[in-house]
């Protein structure tokens, strides 16, 4: 079983929303909602930040996109950062290919529409909007490599 974590992080380390945990193994997927502790969140932020700068230094040419994803034997972590500093992370099964455009769509159609344009969502606080959660849930479920069958 592979764990898939989808979380959206902000510029400031102490801010985060919530974490979806999906389990994706090519055809099998299980879904539940859970909360990451602040400590884990800080660790994750630190790891991604160091990875990003590490890859930037290592790259032989000028970095255009930078750190995209990393893969272990169990899962693959995809990363997308917007020019404004919003970071989107999604964990999937290793069989999944490049999802950069998916993450970009998630940002532009869901985050921008339901968080930035929502006057009651403060941009530097965890997202409380139910509508946002619904929309991102539906979005991930609609992805081609998401499968709801449970073994």
């Amino acid at each position, binding site marked *: 079983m592979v764990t898939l974590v989808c979380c959206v992080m902000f510029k400031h380390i102490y801010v985060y929303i919530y974490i979806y945990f999906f389990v994706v193994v090519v055809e099998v997927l299980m879904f539940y909602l859970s909360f990451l502790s602040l400590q884990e969140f800080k660790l994750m932020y630190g790891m991604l930040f160091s990875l990003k700068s590490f890859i930037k230094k290592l790259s032989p040419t000028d970095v255009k996109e930078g750190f995209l994803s990393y893969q272990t034997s169990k899962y693959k972590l995809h990363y997308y950062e917007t020019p404004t500093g919003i970071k989107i992370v999604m964990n999937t099964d290793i069989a999944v290919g490049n999802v950069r455009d998916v993450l970009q769509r998630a940002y532009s159609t869901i985050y921008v*529409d*339901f968080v930035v*344009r*929502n*006057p*009651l969502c403060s941009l530097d606080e965890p997202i*409380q*909007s*139910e*509508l946002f959660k*619904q929309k991102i849930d539906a979005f991930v479920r609609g992805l081609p490599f998401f499968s709801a069958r449970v073994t």
Partner: protein
Amino acid sequence: MEREGVRMADEALFEFLHMEVISYIFKSLEKDDSDNGKCTAKLEGMGFRVGQGLVERFTRDIPRFKDELDIMKFVCKDFWAGIFKKQVDNLRTNHQGVYVLQDNRFRLLTQISAGKQYMEHAPKFLAFTCGLVRGALSNLGVNSIVTAEVSLLPACKFQVMMQRA
């Protein structure tokens, strides 16, 4: 100003400005410890002046209206479409000067929530629009009182009560 399939920036501009106006007014009046009434009254007043100007522009080439119902239909169709890019979904009246405009997907509320969340904040976002309607009607020769209520976002109802002299 609108092309099919292209999202123009002017929509976002008005939305963001509207959001900021509301939060600014509520924040600045918070220090005086006054109640919500003053804030909504201010917003409504602003909407009133904007509505007056807007209706002048929208009725440039349109002939005089036959009666009140005609005026209300104009508000529901052209006026609403000019501002929110859609028409009012339902207009009801008791033929005695009370009209209810129902919008099932009110443009300024769709991003906020799709149900009961944030319900207590919803009236703030309707005050300006109430003023818009009141200002438009006043410039068309109709004195009225406009109130709004919301029971399930993003649907809302605007109630217009005509004032006879």
